[in-house]
Structure formats: C-alpha cells, structure tokens
C-alpha cells in the first residue's frame, strides 16, 4: 500500500501552523537526503530545484527526520496541544 493510502487511514487534527520547518537551502548539497527514504509518512519528497520539498500535514510525529538530518535543516517541535496525528488502534 502506498504511503498516501496508509496515512489516509489515520485521524489528524491539522493545525494551520506547521510544527516542523525545513530550511531546504541545505538540501541540494546533502549527500544522503536520508529524509526522503526514511520518513514513514513521506513528508519529504524530491524537488528538482530545492532538492527536498517538505509538507507537515501527514506527519506521524516519530522524530525520524530530526535524527537523520545531519545538515541542521530540520527544526522539529511537537504540534500544538491537541493537534497532529491521533492514534486509536496503535
């Protein structure tokens, strides 16, 4: 199943303001761009110009990008209280 279908199973209360921001000016020169392959919600996608395109909406709040990014591009925080993903069966 594609990630887009998997995350559509989940319940989200999406905030208007993102809880993670990515300074993609670091990304074109990043040798591994590990965020592209490891983010389980596929929030990071390849962008021909900026290297990496980020969207926060489907984030599962696992913290993987925070750890695999060694360029300092990811500013990671929790969503505001009550926002973000809500698991019911995990």
């Amino acid at each position: 199943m594609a990630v887009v279908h998997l995350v559509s199973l989940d319940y989200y209360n999406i905030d208007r303001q993102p809880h993670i921001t990515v300074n993609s000016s670091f990304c074109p020169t990043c040798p591994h761009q590990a965020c592209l392959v490891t983010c389980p919600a596929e929030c990071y996608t390849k962008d021909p110009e900026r290297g990496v395109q980020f969207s926060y909406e489907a984030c599962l709040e696992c913290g993987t990008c925070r750890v695999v990014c060694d360029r300092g591009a990811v500013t990671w925080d929790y969503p505001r209280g009550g926002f973000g993903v809500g698991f019911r069966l995990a």
Partner: protein
Amino acid sequence: MSTAYDLVVVGAGPAGSTAALVAARSGLTVALLERGDHPGSKNMFGGVLHTHSLNEIIPRFYEEAPLERAITRRVINLVTDEASLALDFGHRKLARPPYNAFSIIRSRFDRWLAGKAQEAGALLLTRTVAQELIRGRSGAYEGVVLQDGTEIHAPVTICADGVNSLLAKKAGLRPPLRTDQLALGVKQTLALPPDVIEDRCGLQAGEGVDMIYIGSFTRGVGGGAFVYTNSRTLSVGVTLNLADLSRSRLRPEQVLELFLEEPRIAELVEGAAPREYSAHLIPEGGAHMVPTLAHHGVMLAGDSAGFVLNSGLNLEGANLAITSGRLAAETAVQAYLDGDLSAQSLGRYRTALEQSHVLADLHTFKGAHSFLANNRIYTTYPQTVASFIEEVITVGGTPKRRLHAIALDHLGKVGWRDALRDLVASRRYI
C-alpha cells in the same frame, strides 16, 4: 488554576502515569501533562505489555484494565526467500494469573492508566505541551514552561516525554540521538473477526500470540518483524535499524509490504482491512545510551531515558517505563520526606534502577546492540539453519548423512572464522 505542585510529570504514557499515580498515592500534589487529546492518543508500540511491573503497583490490574489478549504463545520465526522455520512455545501457565504478557492498544490502555493517577489525586492536563524546563538561579530545575508561556512550578519534574524528549534535549541533559542507536518501527493495524484470528493463529478464545520474524525480507537491514494478536485486530509491523535503513535506500513501509507479502503472513492477513498506520522511534542503544538520569529537581523515565531492552529475542519497553516511573516517584517522595531535593538525593533514583530489572537487564545485555548489528544474523544464518533442516527432513533417495556432518558442512559454508567469532560473541552478548 494553581500553577505550583510538588511534582510535575511530563507525558502521560506508562512511565509518566505510573510516576503520577505512585507520587499522588503518597500524598504529593502532582500535575500530569499530556500533549495529546487524551493519554494514549500520541502513543504507539508493537503491542505487548509484560505484566510484572504494573502488577506490583496495581495488584491484579488485569481484572480491570482494558487489555486485548493474554499472550499464551510465543513464536520465533526464521525466514529466507524460500523457507521458513518456527520455534513455537506455549504454556498453560501463561493463560493464568498473574500471566506473563497481554497485547494492548495504547489509546485505551494509557487512558485507563492515567485515569488511575487521576483517581489517586493527580491533576491531568491534556492538550498541554511542555516547552522547556525552568532553571532557577541556583541551577536547580523548578518546573516547566508550557507552549503558551504558562509556567508550572514544581521542585521536582519527571520527564517521561518519550524517545524524542525535547525537554531533556533542550536542557542539555541528554546527548543527541544517533541513528545507529535507534530503530524505526512502522506498523499496520488490520481488522479481522475474533474467531478468524483464533482460527488462523490456533488460539483458544480470548488468548493471543506474540510472533517475531527474523530474515531476508529486511534485505539485510538490521531488525525484524512482528505480528501481535489483539481482540479484533492484528498488529503487523517491522522494526528497522535507522542507520541501516538510511543506507539501504529502502523505504520503511516497503519493508513492511515485503513482510506482508511473505506467503505465511499473506495467508494470515487475507481479507483483513487495514485500519491504522503508525510509526515510532525505538531507543535500542541499551546501556550505551542511558543519560545522566537525575539532576537537581529533575529525573528522566521511560523512553526519554532510553529504557528499552532489545536482547535479540525480547523487545521490552513498557515494563521498563512502568518500573522507572515508579522508582522516580518513590525517589521524589523520599526526597520530600528527607527535605532534600538535591542532585545527590535524587541521584538515588539511579541506584534504585540498578537494583531493579531496568538497569540490571540493560547492563546484562549491554553488548547485544553491537552483536545485533551483525548482518549475518538477518541473512546468512536463517539461510544456514533452513538449509540444514531442509537436508535433514528431505527424503530424496540418496544416501543420508548424520546430523553433525550436515551441521559442520553448512556452518563451513558460512566460513569457520565468522561462525566461530559469532558463536563466541553470542555467548558473551546475548
């Protein structure tokens, strides 16, 4: 709202709610902060809670807690591209009190446990994100600042805010996480009628099985897979070493898909409706990633302290979280009785952990993490064992060899030097 308490606990998971419960029972005023809608709504794990740690705090908790199935069987599977081998252990004792383990769904269970802390007198604040620890002029920690700027003051804070523990990180209490010390767990929860689950897994009504899988479907990435039976769902997931996964260029849900396509798993989940997808980081560095656990006015418990035991065949976390939450609360209570909240006084928390299963087990298995980084465990050895068994049980009309001759032959194919080295290491580390 009063903003001064004896104890503030950040995170209403197993560690935090246990700490709040134990401290409130002893008469401390406790604020328990939870960033989700309700306790459990942000929480995810594989699926199994071992009973011993909570049973000490709430005797016979299994009579009232929202549990899924008593785990009465444990199956360890080795999988190669074409073969599979299972070690299936069941014992009737596992179906009787005090049991060994239950599958649980965190959204229900964590909510119940936080409710027990509330009943004992703790104040639960949901949708509340602690942003930072407050540090006083003396250097002691004095509570937390919330996202909206509100300050909650308390002479003792217990950080039970999970593997990412931003509180501990911002305060410099914990070194940055490393990819080689983490596993990424991704899981699908799939719905099936209870009787179908019991039929397919060979279970008595209400009983459950814990199945782990090691082998070729991870394509050499350190880790494995699991299937846990809940009442009406199966939890099916993979845990993958994050450094290996990054290098492999495989995506985590692809590895999970490869696992779901394994013939045995495909049969098991046939017709099951996917209901939820979740992910979580697992601190697997063991004793090597345990930070300083107590400072003046603060202690770390559960995942935020790196308390997960991966001994190769057992992956334990929730029980370590519960015991560490209890010990942190007991240390705080004793510190209040002594009138001494210094780093030295709260430092007794570490001693208590060392005397408990938490740090004792992490110490015993301190070499397991580097041993399990050996990728022969995931590729070569399952293949070796499978071909050994294949030769033993296949009847082909050609002259047979004795067991030890077959074993020596197959081990020889691994390479004697590696096989011996791994055998010696396995004795030392796991």
